[in-house]
């Protein structure tokens, strides 16, 4: 899971095109419209595949989801079993079930949660904002810190700073996010009593704008840092590799020969070019952000989608799991589409067929 960031390479990146070297490499003059259409149709196919998978995993793989729920429910009655069965539509033929699932999902009806008896879309809408707030903050934090530190580490390749930064990154890369969160809670919340142990706002906070904002910020510190610890290493290592690539190029030597200051060459020349392939990676690694959200929100009982996902596991609340599967998958597909389109603008070298 942690090394996913390293494997997410934008289409047309150097690693991807190594295989296409040779006689058949040709430059196409295909326009932006065709490029977008191409990528968008790929994304639509992926989305359809997600819908199929959602149906397949939840209706065909388990022999009987109702039986599983009955096993986990104390005082289960036959009436409940029959009710569940008709609610899931399991008493109808598979094709009818598929058609209903398809039309319902596409019209925005993801079913009703078993544990809350509330529409799944309602739950998702309620819990989207906390996740976006937490993940977004962590993402911005690690992109700025990880990218700049990665660039400096590569620039001073082999120095003490480089070695120390890479070692710390490799350690963080290997540490489970939830474990880092648990340690953070013990040290900073239980022992030092600096931050709250969980949730988004305290129950005692008055329902006014400023107190709530400050309290939320206070609650956010530990989860944000935990999630950042998990994401930071990936961004740092990618930026460092990209920067090392650029440093081998002649234009760097030229810039230096012109007598430009070292910092100027780094920021204005090398880093600007190294940022191209890495920027799209921010979007492509959105799957990592989802992983981070699941663990961080669970440890800190942060009321977002990741914590909701965790709460649905043990029940198991299949409609919620299915809904979140679709939401999570769709967001990674759309993020990748965004990355592809961005790539067209920021790196003209990618404009081949």
């Amino acid at each position, binding site marked *: *899971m*942690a*090394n*996913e960031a*390293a*494997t*997410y*390479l934008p289409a047309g990146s150097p*690693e*991807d095109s*190594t*295989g*296409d*070297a*040779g006689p058949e490499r040709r430059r196409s003059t295909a326009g932006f419209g065709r490029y977008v259409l191409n990528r968008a149709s*790929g994304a639509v196919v*992926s989305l359809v*595949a*997600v819908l199929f998978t959602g149906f397949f*995993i*939840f209706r065909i*793989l*388990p022999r009987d*989801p109702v039986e599983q729920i009955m096993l986990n429910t104390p005082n289960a009655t036959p009436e409940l079993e029959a009710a569940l069965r008709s609610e899931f539509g399991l008493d109808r033929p598979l094709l009818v079930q598929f058609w209903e699932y398809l039309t319902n999902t596409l019209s925005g009806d993801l079913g009703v949660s078993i544990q809350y008896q509330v529409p799944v879309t309602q739950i998702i809408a309620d819990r989207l904002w906390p996740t976006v707030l937490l993940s977004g903050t962590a993402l911005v934090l690690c992109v700025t810190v990880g990218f700049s530190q990665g660039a400096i580490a590569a620039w001073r*390749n082999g120095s003490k700073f480089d070695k120390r930064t890479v070692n710390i990154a*490799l*350690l963080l*890369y*290997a*540490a*489970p*996010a*939830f*474990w880092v969160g*648990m*340690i953070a809670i*013990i040290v900073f919340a*239980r*022992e030092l009593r600096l931050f709250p142990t969980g949730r988004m706002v305290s129950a005692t906070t008055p329902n006014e704008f400023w107190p709530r904002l400050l309290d939320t910020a206070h609650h956010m510190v530990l989860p944000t840092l935990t999630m950042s610890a998990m994401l930071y290493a990936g961004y740092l290592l990618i930026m460092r590799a990209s920067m*090392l690539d650029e440093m081998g190029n002649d234009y760097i030597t030229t810039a230096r020969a012109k007598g430009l200051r070292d910092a100027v060459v780094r920021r204005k020349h090398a880093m600007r070019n190294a940022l191209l392939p890495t920027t799209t990676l921010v979007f492509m690694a959105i*799957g990592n952000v*989802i*992983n981070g959200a*699941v*663990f961080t929100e*669970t*440890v800190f009982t942060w009321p977002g989608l990741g914590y909701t*996902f*965790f709460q649905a*596991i*043990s029940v*198991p609340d299949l409609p919620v*799991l299915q809904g*979140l*599967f679709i939401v*999570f*998958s769709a967001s*990674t*597909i759309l993020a*990748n589409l965004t990355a592809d389109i961005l790539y067209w603008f920021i790196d003209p070298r990618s404009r081949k067929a």
Partner: protein
Amino acid sequence: MSSAMRNASSRSIRLARWRNTARTVWRDYRRQRSGVVGLVGLAVIALVAIGYPLLAEPSALSVTNATGGRLAPPGDGYPLGTDEFGRSVLLLVAQGTRVSLIIGVASASIAMVIGTLIGILAGHFEGKASWVLMRITEWFLVLPGLVVAIILVVVLGRSMTVLIIAIGVTSWAGTARVIRAQTRTVEGRPYLERAKALGAGHWHQMVRHVLPNVMPLVLASTVITVAAAILTESGLAFLGLYDPQNLSWGMLLNRAWSTGAMSAGAWWYILPPGFMIMIVVLCFNLCGRALEVAINPRLRR
């Protein structure tokens, strides 16, 4: 090499070549300090996993035989304190080594087989078949792997086999992509042209020419996949998706978390399992990185 040439059977030539490559890779590998550190670390951990039965008798971890206090801090007889049943945390962590390694290696092997197969097929064949395979690979790359693995375990039941399969089928895409790229470069080399001209079939080309050439890369990729698989396993176990029969480090952290070790401040129950996960994953990553550099001299800086 020379004696092998004299015996000129194709098998001995192949063996000699293979030995030569292995020697070069090992020489380049040894030059990297971090890679050697990782290898030594893994050797020690493997010893713990294999030699665990010598450390303690099987009954030492049974809940009924536990003699220590509930969540007792480190003290005499319990170098790392006790868990919620009064069992030695040190022994629990030592026993967890085996399960975590088995799950990591087994699921990475599944990922390796699927990834290599799809990578070589997609790289060897051109046209529609390759296109379809790459779309599937990309799709698996895009899907949030952890979410899919969690759902698979929820739906199929919590057993070690299901955990291994779930992690395996969600983590092969990266390997497939790397192997495909490498296959494409191998495909452009003259000896494959020659084999084709001599009438070698697709199977022969892929197994005899492409596979041996991508094998080192497969190895490096697998080592890194093991690290990722162990992390994923610990995550699944932490979320409660473990096999109660087989105790892993992630499962220990789940027990610690759900039985109030956090509010009791029982750091001796929380630190060791996570620390072990971190060390093992780090060692596998260090080995994988060093192996990549040894195989691909272009990466050396």
